[in-house]
Each structure stands twice: as C-alpha cells, then as structure tokens.
C-alpha cells in the first residue's frame, strides 16, 4: 500500500531523513519509533504531499506523491502532531467544512459526519466550539477529520501525546479496532504504545532507519543471550556454584533475598538453547526448593535503548 524507497530530505544543509526505505502492506499497522527530531514527522509530511523529497521515491497505492499529489491526498487521512484545528468553529461546522473539501457529496455529508462522530465518541460535543474543548476531545475531533471520507490510509503523528491515561487507553483501543481495515502509520516515542498497537515497528534515529521488524522479533534478535529468572530456596553459594556448573550456562547472578534461605537469581544461557529443563532437574536433584522460574524477554524499551546507543558507539568508532 505504501512504498518508500531511498527517501532523503534535506532542509538546506540540515538533514531531515536520509535513505529511508520501507513498505507497508494493506491493512497493516506500522509504528514509526524514534527519539525527538529523528525524522518521523518529515517522513509523514512527504507521504502527505506537503513537500516533495530531495531524493528518493514515495508511493501510496502505486501513486507517486510527487507526480500525483491530488490523488494521493484523497487516499490519506492525516492527523498532524499538534492537532491543528480551527479553534473558532464548532465541531459539526468544522467537520462539515472538512467533508466538503474532501469532496463528500452533499447528500452523504450528514450521514458520514454522524458516522465518524460515533466512531470517535464526539457526538455529545457536536455543537461546542473547538477552542473550548479539552485536549482529549480535540484529539478525537482531529481523528474524526482524518477518518472522514473513509481513507484507506491513516497517518497519525504522535496521536496520544497530551492525553491522560484513560484517554490514551481509549485512543489505542480505537486504533486497534481499525486494524486490518485500514493501513495505519503512527509515530510515537512511547514504547509500550508500539507494542500495544502496531504489528510492525520501524525504528528511526537521526534520519536513518535503524531497524524494522515485529516488536517480538526485534526483541529476540537483539537479545544476545537468553535470560531466566529463578527463585530458589537453598544456600546461596552452593546454588550459584552448582548451577554455573551446568553446560551452556554463561553466568548466574544472585539477586534480592526473599526469605531466610531464599534468593532471586538471574541466569544467562547461550542464545538459542533452552536449558530450563536441565536447571529444574538439577535444582530438584540437589534437594533445593524451586519456587519460581520464568524466561526473561527483552522489552522494546531495551531494544530501543540498545539500538540508539549502538549507533552512538559505531559513530564514535568512525571518528
């Protein structure tokens, strides 16, 4: 549905993005993840035909954003980062204006507006002036205008910023509810948001793509070792010594003391080997008590920090 190849944008001498390539399949929800000023908004602005790229190609449904901006714009619903709305208009007159400018026929207008108002839960504020609405409601009005005319592609720039936790939750539910029906690109620098709403993540840092995959794959790829969390009742030194003797164990670290003779341990094993069975039988055979045992997986947060810092290290080496 969306195809981006070698996309590069310079603002004068300043690099916005460089050589960004990715594709998004129809019905997929993709998260653009990156720290501030990483190039997320630049990528989105090029896709919404605000300005052309310096180099590279961007296509939406096979149409180039440079050559056919009007057709591309018809396919896209866009919600910019700051949710810019006309503050002096009422919600319904604003949506009426957007409906007209998006070319919705007059006879369908009322019904379509009603539909998006229902989807976004803003029927109860329809006659209020937008400037008087709370941030949460404004964000919903912003989403409503993006959804008008049923665009197959949604581009949302940091859609949950400034919302309270309940609103954030509801907003994510709304976006999850559209999964499969629309192609969605959303940018964020909040990591749990990506793992909750997106099927695939593209991590951008300093204008370049650092990684792209499913949240799960990203986490497992970057993990250099498997880690297992254990709670064992037994003497600390004996347990440490005993377990580190098992083949394939790279290390064991005792953690907090939980009860008189019970400690937490984190065991690192080689990647791609599952040693849980061996550890369990060893512990039982030694007469200790195995209270808890679970694999520790790397969260997206770790992945992100890892990637961004790895970049730094690589850069320093270059210098």
């Amino acid at each position: 549905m969306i195809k981006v190849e070698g996309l590069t944008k310079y603002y004068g001498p300043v690099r916005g993005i460089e050589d960004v390539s990715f594709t998004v399949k129809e019905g997929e929800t993709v998260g653009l993840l990156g720290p501030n000023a990483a190039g997320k908004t630049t990528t989105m602005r090029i896709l919404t035909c605000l300005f052309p790229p310096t180099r590279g190609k961007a296509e939406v449904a096979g149409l180039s954003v440079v050559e056919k901006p009007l057709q591309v714009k018809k396919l896209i619903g866009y919600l910019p980062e700051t949710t810019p709305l006309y503050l002096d208009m009422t919600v319904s007159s604003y949506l009426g204006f957007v409906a007209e400018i998006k070319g919705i026929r007059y006879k369908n207008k009322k019904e379509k507006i009603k539909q998006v108002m229902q989807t976004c839960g803003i029927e109860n504020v329809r006659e209020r002036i937008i400037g008087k609405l709370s941030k949460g409601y404004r964000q919903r009005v912003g989403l409503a205008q993006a959804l008008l005319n049923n665009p197959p592609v949604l581009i949302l720039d940091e859609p949950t910023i400034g919302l309270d936790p309940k609103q954030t939750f509801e907003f994510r539910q709304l976006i999850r509810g559209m999964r499969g029906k629309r192609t969605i690109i959303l940018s964020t620098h909040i990591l749990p948001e990506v793992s909750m709403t997106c099927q695939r993540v593209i991590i951008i840092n300093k204008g370049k793509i650092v990684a792209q995959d499913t949240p799960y794959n990203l986490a497992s790829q970057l993990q250099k070792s498997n880690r297992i969390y254990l709670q064992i009742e037994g003497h600390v030194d004996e347990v440490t010594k005993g377990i580190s003797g098992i083949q394939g164990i790279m290390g064991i670290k005792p953690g907090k003391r939980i009860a008189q003779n019970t400690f937490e341990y984190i065991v690192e094993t080689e990647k791609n080997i599952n040693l849980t069975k061996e550890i369990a039988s060893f512990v039982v055979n030694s007469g200790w008590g195995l209270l808890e045992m679970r694999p520790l997986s790397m969260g997206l947060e770790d992945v992100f920090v890892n990637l961004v810092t790895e970049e730094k290290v690589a850069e320093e080496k270059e210098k």
Partner: protein
Amino acid sequence: MKNFSALFKKEIKSYFVSPIAYVLICVFLVICGYFFYRDLLYFSFLSLQAGYDSSLQSSVNINELILRPLFSNMSFILLFLVPLLTMRIFSEEKKLGTLELLLSYPVRDVEVIMGKFAASLVVLLVALGITSIFPIILFILGEPEAGPIICGYLGLILMSVAFIFVGMLFSSLTENQIIAATATFGALLLFWAIGWSSAFAPGVLGKLLAQLSAFNHFSSFARGVINTSDLTFYINLSLFFLFLTAKSLQARAWKG
C-alpha cells in the same frame, strides 16, 4: 470549484461569526461618513455663496466637490484597513499549524488562495456597498451624474482586489500577524506615495515612478474616467501578487 466554495464559506463564516468583519466595516463606515459629512457641509456653504456671487456658480458641482474627494478618501482609508483584514489569512493558519492539515486535503494551492481572497473581498464589498448610501442621499437632495459614481466604485473595487493580493503575499510569508500587517501597510503606502517624487526624478525614472503609483492610477477613476492603462495597472498588480503568493506557498517544497 467545490473546494473553492468550501473554503470560501468557511472563511466568510470566520469573518462574520467573529467580530473581525463587523469592526472593520464599522470603522470604515464611521470614517467615510465623517468625510462625507464634511464635504457635504462644504458644498452647501459654497452653494450659499454662489447664490450671491454668480462667478462661483460654474464651480459648484456635486460630483467634483463631494464625490471625487469622497472616493479619494475611501481609497486612502482602505490603505489602512486592508492590511488589518489580510494579516490573518495565512499567518494565523501557519501559527496554528492548520495550514499543514489544509494542504494535506485534496486541494490545489490556487484554490486555497482564491477561496481566502474571495472571502476577504466580500468583506470589503459589503463595506463599499453600504457606502452607496452616500450617493443615494445626494440623488435625493440634488442631481449628481451616475457615470462617475459607477466609475469611482469600479476603481475602488479594483484597488481592493490588488491590495488584498498584496496583503496575502505578506501574510503567506510569516506566521506573525503583526509583521504581516506592517509589511503590507508599508508596501501599500509605498505604492501610494511612489508617484510623488516623479515630478523631480529625471527622465524615464520619473515616468516609471508615476506609472507605479496606485494613487495616480486611482485618481482618474475618481474623476470618472476609465483608462485602459489604469485598468491594466490594477489587473497586473493583482496578478503579480497572486503569482508571488502562489510561489510563496510552494516554497515549502524547498524550505520545509
């Protein structure tokens, strides 16, 4: 065309739902009314005098003594008011960020410009329309000529169109409304006064300055004369600034 009308309706609403249009029109009318009253008093004073002194009679002419100065005064007031009308057109949208969203809709730049232009022009047309009460009063009291009046209004409308386009250019260049208004006012005043030095400037330069003057080109309209050179001046000025405004919106391509 549909996009144009959607934008036009939205802009008209925002002018007339907020107090902007009313305040501008009201101020315009109060000042015009004052000048009209002054000219009317002067005219009746002269008429009285002409009753005693027959040599004055030939110079007592409603069109020359009331309407011509009235048109000149109205054009001068427009010079002050148009920058205030046009300063928000793009600056406000730039500041709020709504321009980015607006341009992400399937609209052409020129539709955006023309929609906003038409709405501003309507505000000025309403103001000018209400001033038609002055000639109507004169028709009731005396016998002015209709031709020069129509001609004067034509000149005012042409000038409004050109001034709005000048204002739109400066509004599209900045997100600060005060800067937009100041720059527009400066540009318009310069276009107004540029002819004043033409008498002293040598040769071609003097002619050029005289031809660039918005005031010179308006004065024949106020007299009741339609010159093709005046018509083309205002049309060219409008088209030139429309072109610059369109380019300024497109500049986002390389400015970002």
